[in-house]
Structure formats: structure tokens, C-alpha cells
């Protein structure tokens, strides 16, 4: 009863915006998939001469909304009253475009499906290379207008391309679009972590040992950030205040350290003779999850940001590493090994209810969460070929988003 009430209120508010709304709808359909909103997405009309044959914005918008799991996307060539009625579609996205050389002008519309009245209209203009981003922005608007939630469709994933000789940092849209290199050198560049929307901190062997570097992905400038004559690696940047937590062997043993965004205030926070590594922040900045072999094998632990109250979380297998804390704050993803391969698991932050997320063959490693905590990206593969995959936090709707066979060690950007 509660469920039906909630959905009815949602429909009524869309109806209020449109002015008119069909009275009859089938409530059973709404019970099926995550309270999702049926929505039609139609091809945009070409108002110019040149035809768009790739990166079609209506395709991108439909894919984004379907990916979120919050919309039932009906794709049609033109408004189809019968199909709309059969699928309880009340809203429709369509638009217009004009392509002149390398410049595109895009008009996107959300309209009432029955009356055709426009609810929302947005205009975008720019270089063709930004076409997918324009579409992602409109999809974000759809999330905000219809669900009151921030859209993450303009989020990015920074990752490592390993061509067998060198490891370089690449970046791509969350859906695998616009893949481009941000380092391009001989050597090993690994473990990237977004510092903010335009900077990345990572580990590089440029000086013959693992040190931390910081680079701006807009200007392309990078510089050494944290170093010693020993190992400095696995950086993670807090979304609250930009503090960096990382692992280092500078005091004779692999331990976890924290510093301020300007490198000041360097503080060691683990002191166990174990290997303590792979730190990651909680979304509120109060705690750090990490990997330690202090109990005899690598397992996931949490502690306060000052190192106090260390608590072990994982007890099931004999090898767990690379924790990633959900932006929702309630669960931690990690990789756990059984029979020589890893799978992605999630566990409650108090150690309760470990759940296996991946079932695909190949070794599934290095999880990272979407900005809203709904999805997990990870690398999946065997032997030479490793690609980036994305899956819902409950393990459903697995998708592969790279095809190079060389993608791993991802970090998904934050809101």
C-alpha cells in the first residue's frame, strides 16, 4: 500500500507540471523495477544539412537513464500512442540538432507524452567532441527534475592502461566514452585517485621507485607530490577536506600515513609490523578502511582517521584487499580471492553481511563506487586481457565499458 501511494504521488506531480494527465495506469508495472519511471526517448530531428551518425545524443540520454535503473526507457522512432499506453509512458524526451562543420547546436526537450506539451527545454552548443557530455548533462537534469536526485552521468573514471610494456593513466566518461590518455610515458603509472574534479594523485616509478605525483587533467601539468627513498603508494583523497591517506615504508615497515592537501601535517597512523596498505577514506572523513596482514593474511580493516579503534571486517576468505567505501557510507567493497581468482564483495561497515557481487569468470579486482553508491566499476579478466566492467551494487546488470583488454585500477570521480 505504501509503495502504491509513493508512486501515485510521483505521477500526480508530473501531471501537475503537464497540466493534463491520463487517469488510467497499471500499478503492477510500477511494482516491478525499482519504482522506475517509464519514459520514451525519441530520435532528435535534424534541422540542418549534415547528419549525426555517431554519439547520437538520444542514444546517450536513453542509455544513461536506463543505466540508472530508475527509468524504464522505451525507445521509439516517433510518438506511439498505443505503445505508450501499453507501457504507461507519461513523459517523452525528444529534440533537435543542427550540425555545422564541427559545431553542434542541440535542443533537448522533456514533454508530456499525451499532450506533447514541453515540460523542460535545454539548449547546448559547442564542439562536436563535447556532444556526449551535452547529452550526459541533459540526463543529469532528468534525474534532478523527475527524481530530485543529483545525476552522475557526467562523472569520469580514471584508470590504468597496461600495454604490456608501460602503464599509463587514462580517463573516460563513466560509460566508456571519450577514452584518452593523461600520461603518455615509458614507465609505470598506477593507483590513480581523483583529488578533485580536475586533479589526480597517483603512484609513479619515474624516479626509479614508487612516489606519489599530482597532475591536473585540464592543464596537463604534473609534479611530484610525496616521496622518500622508500615506497610511497596507494593514495586516496578525502571528499570532505582533500586530505590524502597513503601507504609508505619510510619508517622501516609498510604503514599508513595521512597528510593535508598541501602535504603538511604528515602523520603515521598505523604502527603494526604487518603490511598495512590500500587505505581509503570513509565518505564523512572520520574513518579509513585498509588492508592488513596483521592476523596472518591480507584482510580488510577499518580504523578512525587518527589510527584509533582498529577493527577487522573480513573473516571469510584468506585474501582480501583494495577496500572502497560506498558514498552512501554503509558498505565497503573489496576484492576477495577464492581458488586463485578474485571477486568483488561488499560488507557492512560494522562487518556484517558480506555479499559476493560478481559472478563473471576471470579475476574481478579493484572496485570503485559510482558517485551515488548505486554501481561498482572494477576490472575483470584473465591473463593478458583485462577490461573495465560496471555492475549494480546488488550484482545485476553487468556491463563491460572498455574493449582495449588493457584497463584496470579505476577510480570513479565524485559529485
Amino acid at each position, binding site marked *: 500500500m505504501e509503495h502504491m501511494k509513493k508512486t501515485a504521488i510521483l505521477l500526480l506531480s508530473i501531471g501537475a507540471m503537464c497540466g493534463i494527465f491520463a487517469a488510467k495506469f497499471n500499478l503492477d508495472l510500477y511494482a516491478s523495477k525499482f519504482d522506475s519511471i517509464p519514459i520514451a526517448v525519441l530520435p532528435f530531428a535534424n534541422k540542418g544539412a549534415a547528419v549525426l551518425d555517431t554519439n547520437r545524443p538520444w542514444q546517450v540520454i536513453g542509455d544513461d537513464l536506463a543505466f540508472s535503473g530508475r527509468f524504464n526507457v522505451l525507445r521509439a522512432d516517433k510518438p506511439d500512442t498505443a505503445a505508450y499506453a501499453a507501457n504507461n509512458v507519461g513523459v517523452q524526451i525528444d529534440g533537435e540538432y543542427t550540425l555545422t562543420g564541427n559545431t553542434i547546436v542541440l535542443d533537448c526537450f522533456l514533454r508530456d507524452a499525451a499532450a506533447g506539451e514541453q515540460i523542460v527545454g535545454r539548449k547546448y552548443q559547442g564542439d562536436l567532441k563535447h556532444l556526449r557530455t551535452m547529452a550526459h548533462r541533459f540526463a543529469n537534469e532528468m534525474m534532478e527534475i523527475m527524481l530530485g536526485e543529483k545525476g552522475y552521468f557526467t562523472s569520469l573514471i580514471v584508470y590504468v592502461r597496461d600495454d604490456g610494456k608501460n602503464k599509463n593513466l587514462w580517463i573516460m566518461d563513466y560509460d566508456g566514452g571519450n577514452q584518452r590518455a593523461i600520461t603518455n610515458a615509458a614507465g609505470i603509472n*598506477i593507483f590513480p585517485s581523483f583529488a578533485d574534479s580536475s586533479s589526480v594523485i597517483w603512484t609513479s616509478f619515474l*624516479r626509479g621507485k*614508487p612516489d606519489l605525483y599530482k597532475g591536473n587533467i585540464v592543464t596537463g601539468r604534473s609534479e611530484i607530490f610525496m616521496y622518500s627513498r622508500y*615506497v610511497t603508494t596507494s593514495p586516496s583523497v578525502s571528499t570532505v577536506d582533500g586530505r590524502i591517506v597513503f601507504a609508505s615504508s619510510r619508517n622501516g615497515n609498510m604503514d599508513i600515513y595521512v597528510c593535508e592537501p598541501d602535504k603538511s601535517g604528515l602523520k603515521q597512523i598505523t604502527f603494526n609490523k604487518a603490511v598495512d596498505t590500500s587505505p581509503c577514506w570513509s565518505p564523512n572523513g572520520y574513518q579509513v578502511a585498509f588492508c592488513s*596482514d596483521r592476523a596472518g593474511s591480507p584482510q580488510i580493516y577499518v580504523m578512525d582517521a587518527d589510527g584509533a579503534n582498529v577493527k577487522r571486517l573480513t573473516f571469510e576468505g584468506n585474501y582480501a*584487499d583494495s577496500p572502497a567505501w560506498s558514498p552512501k557510507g554503509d558498505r565497503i567493497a573489496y576484492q576477495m580471492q577464492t581458488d586463485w581468482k578474485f571477486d568483488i564483495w561488499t560488507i557492512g561497515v560494522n562487518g556484517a553481511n558480506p555479499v559476493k557481487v560478481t559472478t563473471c569468470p576471470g579475476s574481478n579486482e*579493484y572496485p570503485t563506487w559510482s558517485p551515488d553508491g548505486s554501481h561498482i566499476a572494477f576490472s575483470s579478466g584473465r591473463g593478458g586481457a583485462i577490461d573495465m566492467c560496471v555492475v549494480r551494487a546488488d550484482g545485476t546488470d553487468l556491463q563491460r565499458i572498455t574493449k582495449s583488454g588493457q584497463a584496470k585500477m579505476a577510480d570513479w570521480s565524485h559529485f
Partner: protein
Amino acid sequence: MVARTMMASAGIFAFGLSLMLAGCTKKAVNIEPLPPPALQPKADAAAARPRAFDTSSEISFKEADLDEQLRREAAEKLKPVYFDFNSFSLRADAIERLGIIAGFCKDHGNLRLLVQGHCDERGSSEYNMGLGERRSRAAKDYLSDYGISPAQVEVTSYGKEQPAVAGCGDEACHQQNRRDEFKVLQ
């Protein structure tokens, strides 16, 4: 792993060449592991001292360009040391090789060594940086038991990021990746 080629220095005199050749043959026959700590250091090794630490704000580990003779001696004596799965303990074969390496360090007290710890590809990338670090330190600690000053030996870890052999399918192949490698530093 990409092998660095050492530049051979030009102009080796005939006298030096014959001496070197004779020396190579002799050393190949007479190499044996040095005994534990009660070793008498050679006079010239005692006189030579390790180069001062690089105290500039940005330390860099770069392999030295050795002359031909030294390059060959390094290739012969600074062989990798191998480890058991998930372990950083030194096996008998590792200890034997470390003895030879210690001899090299004593003979060349002015040279710094870099120990690079590595892991096989089966574990996780992040934890393996730690295991590689332990392997490198195990070798350095053993060398210091031989009287090699810690100032003469640097350590670092590559985790599983630089395998000697990639895409291993069997244990014999994985063994080749669980190693410490030794490089002469500038």
C-alpha cells in the same frame, strides 16, 4: 621486463683487457659464498667508502652506466634471488647468491646497490607492493649481517607491476617472478 643495456666504454687497453680476461676465468672457478659475519674485509674495500647519500629534495634511483669490466662482473654476480609463494624468507639458494652479492659490495665499496622486490601475478596489486617491499628488505638485512653498510644498499618494491615473465600459466613460470633484483646505482 625491459632490460637496460649497459653502454660499453670505449678504449680498453690490451693490458687491461688481458688482465680482465684472466681475472674472469679465475673468478669463475674460485667463486664461493663468503662465510658468515666473521669475514676479514679486504684492505682496499675498507679504504673505499660508499658515496654520500643524495640529500637533495628529490631522490632518484638511476642505474649506473658501468664500464665493460664492471658490467660483466655485475651481470655475473648480481643475479636475482628467488622466493617461495607468499613468503619473504631467504631460501638456501637465495643465501648462496646473497653471499656472492655481498662479495661484490665489499669489492666495490664505492658503489651503491638497489634491491628491487617483486611478486608473481596472482595476488592483488596493492598488497603485493608490501610483499615486494618485505622481500627487498630481507635481502638488505642479510647483506648487512655480512657487514655491508645499510648506506650502501637501497631498497624498493615493484609489487607485481614488473614481472620478469608475463602471463604465467604454471608454477615454474610464477617462480621466476617472485624475486629480488639487484642493480648498481649512479
